[in-house]
């Protein structure tokens, strides 16, 4: 059975929690004791119907205020697939949560209220899906029951969104008319939308081709930890443990260790007490090399004919996550794969107005939830790829040197001098 990770986004009353409640309920992932707890809570809060949103809003403050504050993770499985939902709140101030939820997702479900059509928040959610390079966007047009399941309403929304998708370079967009409250086209095909020829949502999720296989990308093995048992039996054992970020490696491959550019050959690939002939992403393994070379955490093992970029001048699209704004000229800690370096913020090229989908040049004050194109200089070169090519070696986080909070999420892009990242 395979795993599909998806994120859900919608604005406050688009029915996102109801949809998730419906998926969990109809796939029998909600148990009687959970249902009883939700019924009791609904009554206590004065809701007339059972409020499925209470299944997902876990914190006291969320239940009191009727809003979702933080990303919540939900799990359900069908006989075909196991799913992880990163359920992200739709409020304006929570762009950082959407970015967080999308960072580990393969697909996004973006909800639109059929009565309101595309709104500012839809654009924002779509921008985030595009920024984080999700393979699929499912535009779920919800509350179709409130527009009499009108094909015309659905088609108008679809036409309007197609233009946005094109602008944002979203390649795979799938449109579904649903009613989360009544279950139309969620698990079962609805008889109220005979004009809709696609699959219901759940079948679609079960059959989405899972991400453009990371196994076909160039091999990248960031070294996490060196395994050196201090025992007689394994006296000379020395292996480099890590999780293959992309691609595949096999015994006998000629490899280069970065940053030292030392060359060697893969002697063995160990998975605990088993030795493998080859490994592929995202497997966690331990690699042994034929030569006694200096390798430590933060190094990267790659195939000698597939070297990544190695550079200390990095351009990023950054989503700022902290209430203290980005400070140009300041020093931050940069975490990139298993590597940790210092970095100076050199400049802010432009900010992105994600409501209008426009670049704003000249405004250099990057605040929480802002997205900006910036340039940094790191204390040591980063062994990286562009985010568009590799989501693991192309991403990094920025950490405040004083508070140690994670303040920025960066996606590596080409520098402005070479190419402008246009939206």
């Amino acid at each position, binding site marked *: *059975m395979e*795993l599909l990770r998806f994120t859900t986004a919608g604005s406050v009353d688009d029915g996102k929690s109801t949809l998730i409640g419906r998926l969990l309920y109809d796939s029998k992932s909600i*148990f*009687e*004791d*959970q249902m009883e*707890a939700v019924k009791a809570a609904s009554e206590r809060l004065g809701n007339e119907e059972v409020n499925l949103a209470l*299944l*997902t*809003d*876990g*914190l*006291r403050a969320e*239940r009191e205020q009727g809003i979702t*504050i*933080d*990303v*919540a*993770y*939900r*799990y359900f*499985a069908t006989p075909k697939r*196991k799913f992880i939902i990163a359920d992200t709140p739709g409020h304006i101030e929570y762009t*950082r*949560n959407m*970015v*967080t939820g999308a*960072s*580990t997702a393969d697909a996004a479900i973006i909800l639109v209220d059929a009565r309101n059509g595309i709104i500012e928040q839809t654009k924002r959610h779509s921008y985030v899906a595009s920024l984080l390079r999700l393979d699929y966007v499912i535009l779920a047009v919800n509350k179709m029951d409130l527009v009499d399941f009108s094909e015309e309403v659905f088609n108008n929304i679809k036409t309007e969104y197609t233009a946005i998708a094109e602008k944002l370079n979203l390649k795979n967009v799938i449109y579904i008319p649903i009613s989360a409250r009544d279950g139309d086209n969620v698990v079962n095909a609805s008889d109220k939308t005979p004009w809709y020829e696609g699959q219901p949502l759940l079948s679609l999720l079960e059959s989405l081709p*899972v991400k453009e*296989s990371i196994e076909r990308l160039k091999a990248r093995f960031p070294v*996490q*930890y060196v395994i*050196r*048992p*201090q*025992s007689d039996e*394994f006296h000379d054992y020395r292996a480099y*443990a890590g*999780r293959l970020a992309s691609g595949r490696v096999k015994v006998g491959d000629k490899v280069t260790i970065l940053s030292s550019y030392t060359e060697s050959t893969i002697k063995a690939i*160990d*998975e*605990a*007490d088993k030795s493998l002939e080859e490994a*592929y992403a*995202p*497997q*966690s393994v331990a690699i042994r090399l034929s030569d006694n070379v200096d390798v430590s955490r933060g190094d990267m093992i790659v195939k000698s004919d597939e070297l990544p970029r190695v550079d200390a001048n990095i351009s990023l699209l950054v989503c700022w*996550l902290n209430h203290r704004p980005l400070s140009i000229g300041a020093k931050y*800690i940069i*975490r990139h*794969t*298993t590597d940790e370096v210092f970095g100076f913020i050199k400049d802010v090229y432009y900010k992105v107005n994600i409501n209008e989908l426009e670049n704003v040049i000249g405004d250099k004050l990057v605040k929480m939830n802002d997205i900006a194109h910036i340039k940094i200089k790191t204390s040591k070169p980063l062994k990286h790829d562009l985010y568009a090519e590799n989501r*693991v070696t192309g*991403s990094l*986080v920025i*950490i405040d040197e004083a508070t*140690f909070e*994670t303040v920025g*999420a960066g996606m590596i892009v080409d520098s402005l001098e070479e190419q402008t990242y246009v939206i």
Partner: protein
Amino acid sequence: MSDRLTHLKELESESIYVLREVAAQFEKPALLFSGGKDSIVMAHLAYKAFYPASIPFPFVHIDTGHNFEETITYRDDLVKKLGVKLIVGSVQESIDAGRVVEETGYNASRNKLQTVTLLDTLEKYKFDAALGGARRDEEKARAKERFFSHRDEFGQWDPKNQRPELWNIFNGKKQLGEHFRIFPLSNWTEMDVWQYILQEDIELPSLYYTHEREVFERDGTWLAYYPFMQLKPSEQVIRKRIRCRTIGDITCTGVTISEANTLEDIIGEIASSRVTERGGRSDDKRSEAAMEDRKKAGYF
């Protein structure tokens, strides 16, 4: 050529990655071992993550003094087999030292008292990271947890102000006196855990399989009877064939009437179950936000 790992393989790989990050990022981590299936799976993953070296951190067991003896036997055998150091934090000692006051009455439980013993133990040994087997699917407050969950110097969790956790980049940086709780099994479900135990052929305490035991019914839940428990006049102790679906402190672990004798039986039973595994845990039922409140105070 398989394009994708199975979901169990992918979860295993993710957890091993987290365990290795902990060994690399922290000076003095510890694995919180309860003797329950989740911490047993975590111990198995730790074994795999560092093989052939031994697990580079000790196990910590917070012993309420009300543990099933099968759990203690299993624990002692396992640490011996793995060659890891075991540190036991004793709730009884916390009570004797006046750090906590024992609850009284019918629903008396040492579950909540464990928090103080846990924090005292972490403090005493200066652990800067504590690995726990909690899963996000278990409980609604846990669905909001990070893999690397920051705790302030009072051991508290601040759910409204958590560090964003993106991709698989974990930030374990902290100020002096603060620590992290780390949850390598965050993305596992109860079913994943059981399927993995079957796949890896992991030995479990006998409590998870059907056996005969003295039990009594309270508020619709079957509890194992021990002489220190206070019975209400209406409650009758009888012998039944049961098994544990989760294992915690005796006072708050509901047992299941079951004949399941093999892992396959157990998986079948869980697949058709209509209540969650924590449905029998009276510690969660004390209020709607019982778990959130305990977690904020520093609970597992």
